């Protein structure tokens, strides 16, 4: 314990990562007081409203331009919305009502915006209720112009500061200069408030929801430390605390630099062997996200979203457009398209699902595709057509024996013949493989290799089926352990058997992105790791620290343990030592 405890700790909602150490600037928007004077005629008052509105429009366009340049179109669009509110007929109508009973336009404006903002603020849905702040922001802007005051907002700050405010309107947040703003903390607000989103885009540490009375705890000039990852604010930290946070800040920043550098390069082991790091993706937008995080391909393109968003099966054209868009985003990098993988747990309305006791052991994935060949053929045609000029592969989910695989491949060949007869352009040489996610497939890899060009381990289902555990069942979900020796043996066996037949073996389950598993999988000789895009930089960095020899040692040591606890414990030690 320290002898003198002058520092005080508070906690809010962390919304944007980063540490800031510095002086506070308390932002208290000026009270706009209404002038006491008689109202003019209705026409005179409304004419003043019109000209203030024009001026506001110009200001908002200016803010839009600044934010568009600083953070992009999406962040700037809030000021488009403000311009729409400015010309809202309901706002003008309400103001006119009040002016017609003899009020000044200032009084009318304050009442009208308050009424409309209250309508929104009272809504149950947080997203809608949050728009009340926008109405108030717009009203305040018009009022300020009517009073002839300049748009000062936060432009008064000249020294690098941490901004502390009751709340920040979108206009306030937009006028933050990222060059002298170290971060901000507000008493109100939530994770989805506009200022929080802007902070993340600008990379500014931010904490919101600190609670009432925040501005009583600090004043401009107070020295504080804020941690945007934990939501902590420390007022008047002692020297020891400051040093400690300076260190954390430096460590985090250099780690971020390292990860960023790792993400930009192809993944290589410490002895220079190329390993493919790919992303699991569920829609076109996340393909872009994957590219930004350094994905070298897509190891699993889920197609379920295309099937579940409508009440009828998706057309070939619609699928073609979606696949094509994703292939183009990945510009020549490999993309593995997994054919329809749905079941009775999430049935689309247009398929005749039976009542099932256990949908995960029921009619799903490749079983549906084989029973509904027209549905299957439509998807295959769309993939084969979209694959022209791209590096695509087709992967079947939940295959458990050779007969199934042969039948599925026969349908692919039939589709190719149809396309050829109809003189439709398609990619003829698309490799076809399977997911290894049933224990049956894992022990039959040498047999399945006859008809599969590659294998990809789906460790989520493989774990569920091997351990006989439903991870959605809270009573048993702790038994869902992808690092269980039984699962690891099946994984090693799959990789060895695949390699013995000269086949490429990847993994697209969650395990592939877990740092505690990556050294073992690398030691097994896994060819490709496909994961959530956000896990990619860390994975690439980790692989770069391991030689193949070291990874093989780690894998064989891990396999010598009989329980998950021992394996996890061993891996914790390994990760700490790297």
């Amino acid at each position, binding site marked *: 314990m320290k002898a003198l405890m002058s520092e005080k700790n508070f906690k809010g909602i962390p919304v944007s990562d980063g540490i800031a150490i510095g002086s506070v600037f308390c932002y208290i928007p000026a009270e706009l007081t209404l002038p006491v004077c008689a109202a003019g005629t209705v026409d005179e008052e409304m004419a003043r409203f019109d000209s203030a509105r024009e001026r506001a429009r110009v200001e908002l366009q200016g803010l839009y331009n600044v934010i568009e340049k600083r953070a992009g179109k999406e962040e700037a*669009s809030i000021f*488009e*919305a403000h311009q*729409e*509110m400015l010309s*809202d*007929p*309901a*706002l003008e109508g309400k103001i006119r009502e009040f002016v017609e009973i003899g009020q000044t336009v200032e009084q009318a404006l304050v009442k009208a915006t308050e009424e*409309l903002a209250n*309508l*929104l603020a009272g*809504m*149950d*849905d947080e*997203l*809608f209720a949050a*728009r009340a702040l926008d*109405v108030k922001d717009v009203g305040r802007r018009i009022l300020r112009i009517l009073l002839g005051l300049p748009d000062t907002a936060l432009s008064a700050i000249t020294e690098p500061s941490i901004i502390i405010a009751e709340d920040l309107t979108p206009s306030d947040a937009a006028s933050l200069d990222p060059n002298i703003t170290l971060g901000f903390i507000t008493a109100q607000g939530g994770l989805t408030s506009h200022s929080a989103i802007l902070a993340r885009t600008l990379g500014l540490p931010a904490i919101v929801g600190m609670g009432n009375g925040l501005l009583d705890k600090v004043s401009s000039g107070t020295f504080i430390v804020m941690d945007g990852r934990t939501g902590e604010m420390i007022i008047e930290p002692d020297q020891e605390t400051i040093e400690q946070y300076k260190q954390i800040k430096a460590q985090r920043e250099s780690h971020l630099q390292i990860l960023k550098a790792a993400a930009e390069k192809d993944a290589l082991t410490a002895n220079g062997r190329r390993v493919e790091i790919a992303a699991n993706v569920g829609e076109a937008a996340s393909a872009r996200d994957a590219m930004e995080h350094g994905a070298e391909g897509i190891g699993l393109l889920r197609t379920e979203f295309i099937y579940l*968003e409508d009440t009828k099966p998706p057309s070939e054209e*619609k699928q073609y*457009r*979606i696949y094509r868009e994703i292939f183009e985003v990945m510009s020549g990098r490999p993309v593995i398209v997994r054919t329809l993988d749905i079941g009775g747990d999430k049935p689309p309305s247009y398929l005749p699902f039976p009542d099932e006791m256990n949908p995960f052991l029921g009619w799903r994935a490749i079983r549906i595709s084989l029973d509904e060949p027209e549905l299957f053929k439509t998807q295959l045609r769309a993939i084969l057509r979209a694959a022209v000029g791209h590096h695509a592969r087709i992967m079947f989910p939940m295959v458990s024996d050779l007969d199934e695989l042969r039948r599925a491949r026969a349908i692919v060949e039939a589709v190719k013949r149809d396309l050829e007869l109809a003189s439709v352009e398609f990619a003829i040489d698309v490799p076809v493989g399977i997911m290894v996610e049933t224990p049956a497939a894992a022990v039959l890899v040498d047999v399945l290799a006859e008809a599969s060009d590659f294998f990809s381990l789906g460790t989520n289902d493989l774990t569920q089926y091997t351990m006989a555990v439903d991870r959605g069942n809270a009573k048993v979900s702790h038994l869902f352990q992808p690092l269980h020796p039984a699962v690891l043996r099946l994984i090693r066996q799959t990789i060895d058997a695949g390699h013995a037949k000269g086949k490429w073996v990847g993994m697209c389950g969650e395990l592939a992105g877990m740092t505690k598993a990556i050294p073992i999988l690398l030691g097994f000789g896994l060819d490709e790791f496909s994961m959530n895009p956000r896990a990619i930089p860390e994975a690439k960095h980790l692989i770069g620290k391991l030689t193949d020899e070291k990874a093989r040692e780690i894998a064989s040591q891990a396999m010598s343990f009989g329980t998950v606890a021992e394996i996890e414990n061993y891996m914790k030690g390994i990760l700490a030592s790297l």
Partner: protein
Amino acid sequence: MAEATIQVKHAVGLHARPASLFVRTASKFSSKIKVKNLTVNGDFVDAKSIIMVLTLGVLKEHEVVIQTEGADADAALGALRSLIEGNFGEA
């Protein structure tokens, strides 16, 4: 007067970009246009007012009733219908 009941399928409902496109489209017509959220059974509001359209709280899968009245009533209803049914131009 023309009227139609349409389901909104967009993930955010009538909020953000969809709400803005809806109001912008309505504002192109001279007809009086009213809209209400049938799912929560609220009141009709002016479809040309972004604030009032937001107060409807239309979420994904809610149904809205649109009423148009005036010289271009049918055209206005058609335009709003195809905007919503075309999922606001998103695939």
